[in-house]
């Protein structure tokens, strides 16, 4: 398939994703604005309480803040000005949490933590899950298969935030082997020294584990079902009849045909993961965008919530795009325009 076709295909997919992002982002915008509760007056009152002095002309100040946050005028004008500011000037606007700093700065500072632990956990879970699933599928019908299958079936049911709770309970409080919260111990100076990195890894194990412990079993189940169906395919029976050795059979016949559907599976599962990792970060008070979100909500900090939501939508869609691009390279049927 010539270069031109591939590029046109990628452009088409990218366009679909941009539109989906805009639609999702706008739906989010209106939903948030429709929620009753006036964040600005609440914000002004907070200032009074925090710095404990009475503000006389509260109404003017509220209007000034509304102006600053772009919250005056009817919903539509707000929407247009907001979209222009976000997508043209890449500025999400000020945040309520700590006022003058724009929302995106808050997010950029915390994003690496989330991406780090989330990305690593999801990919590790995918790789382990596929390998284990293929083996369990290969050994289908044996005792090992039914044991692992029922275990995986149960494990995949437990919600990840429950796993997080139980992990904290067991490893942090009872055994005390892992720290229950934060990203690194306060006694360590952040920098590229070994000690800091070790502390970061130690702190990240429990949050990552709570994701992995739930995702690996669900990948095992879906891969096992896929392996069993592939093992029933004619080309597998024929390959076995040809006397192809087990190892070669596994990786050139079974695994190659598993990767394709599981790649799309990975893209789809990201949507689900994005929905859930906020809670894990909150339970471990891990300094990622999840905790930031949980703090932003009670204050109804529109800009920060929208910012974090946009990041998560963007990550899911770009993952889908990457997999769409990978697909033709992996699947000859599409590559040769069959």
């Amino acid at each position: 398939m010539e270069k031109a076709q591939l590029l046109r295909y990628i452009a088409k997919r990218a366009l679909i994703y941009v539109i989906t992002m805009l639609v999702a982002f706008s739906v989010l915008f209106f939903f948030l604005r429709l929620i009753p509760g006036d964040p600005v007056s609440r914000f002004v009152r907070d200032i009074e309480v925090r710095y404990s002095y009475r503000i006389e002309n509260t109404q003017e100040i509220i209007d000034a803040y509304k102006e600053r946050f772009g919250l005056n005028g009817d919903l539509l004008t707000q929407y247009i000005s907001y979209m222009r500011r976000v997508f043209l000037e890449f500025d999400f606007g000020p945040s309520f949490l700590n006022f003058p700093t724009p929302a995106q700065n808050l997010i950029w500072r915390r994003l690496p933590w989330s991406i780090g632990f989330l990305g690593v956990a999801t990919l590790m879970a995918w790789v382990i899950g596929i390998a284990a699933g293929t083996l369990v599928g290969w050994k289908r019908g044996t005792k090992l298969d039914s044991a692992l299958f029922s275990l995986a079936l149960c494990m995949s049911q437990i919600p990840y935030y429950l796993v997080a709770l139980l992990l904290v309970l067991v490893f942090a409080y009872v055994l005390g082997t892992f720290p229950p919260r934060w990203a690194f111990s306060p006694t360590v100076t952040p920098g590229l020294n070994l000690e800091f990195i070790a502390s970061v890894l130690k702190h990240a194990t429990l949050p990552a584990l709570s994701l992995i412990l739930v995702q690996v079993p669900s990948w095992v189940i879906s891969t096992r079902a896929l392996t069993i169906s592939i093992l029933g395919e004619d080309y597998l029976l024929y390959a076995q009849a040809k006397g192809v050795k087990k190892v070669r059979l596994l990786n050139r016949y079974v695994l190659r045909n598993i990767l394709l559907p599981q790649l799309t599976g990975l893209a789809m599962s990201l949507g689900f993961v994005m929905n859930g990792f906020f809670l894990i970060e909150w339970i471990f008070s891990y300094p990622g965008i999840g905790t930031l979100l949980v703090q932003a909500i009670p204050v109804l900090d529109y800009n920060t919530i929208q910012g974090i939501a946009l990041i998560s939508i963007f990550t899911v869609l770009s993952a889908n795009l990457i997999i769409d691009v990978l697909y033709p390279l992996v699947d000859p049927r599409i590559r040769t325009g069959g």
Partner: protein
Amino acid sequence: METPLLELRNITKDFAIGGGLGLGEKKSIKAVDDVSLTVSREKPTILALVGESGSGKTTIARITLGLLGPTSGEILYEGRDVRNWIKKDKKTYRRNVQVIFQDPYSIYNPFYRVDRVLFKAVKKFGLASSSKEARDMVIESMRAMGLRPEDLLGRYPHQLSGGERQRLMLVRILLIKPKLVIADEPVSMIDVSLRSIFLNNLQDLRSRLEMSTIYITHDLNIAHYISDEMMVLCYGRMVETGETKSVVKDPLHPYTQGLVNAIPTPNPRKRWKDTIEIEEVTFKELLAQRQRCIYSHRCPHVMPICKEKIPPLMEVKSGRKTACFLYAEVLETAKLE
């Protein structure tokens, strides 16, 4: 010549085959290319559409049934365009033109008993005034087709064999009493021993209901056994038409000749003597330059002209037409005399 029962005029149907997932520019393949045929109104006939897979015979069937629209050309049932029939009074058209599908295993809704197919037809076409009368009609039609109602009615589809299911379709046709039936390879999925019972019943319906049939098959044996007239299709184009017995006995077009002597004869004494060379045609060749005889890449008697022009369908003998330049001189000399 008054209006025929069914007339297809220069039907063409293109299918776009871009690459997977919208890749590749829009190439299109002509599944049906300029096909015309007529089914006469007075004498009920069985016309066989014969061709290998990919010859467009099923596409023609679906166009006639109104399930698919042609890219160009017209389909006239009793002089009126089928699409107009379906828009204006679909019920009469469905009443007059019926179908027997190929796969007996997918035409019964697994959720219901098989009786539903028959009683639904009676109800929708208002063939009986009361449910009692409907039941009697169904039982009587089943007996007429040599089926025992006590064994079949009340059963679920998975409890019936392929043969029984297809014969129930014939009972449905007997109930509806259409003027024309399109049978799309109805026996290809049932065993040889049950086929002839189905084929004999279908022929019996022709006389009993004054009903014409367009019988679609890739099996020349069956076409020879059941049909009066035959049209041979190759990659969407008409290559030969004529009265079945004479086409099979003395095939004119090289493609038909290839088909006839490729049939294995059930007699070990009369085995194939020569071995035939078959070049497979790939998609690319099919799409390549269209202005040529569709069989030219495989034809043993190919001539230069075959690769430049499309041979028109010419009447070479009485009632025998073929689209092949081999017979061009014959026609020239005939015209001269």
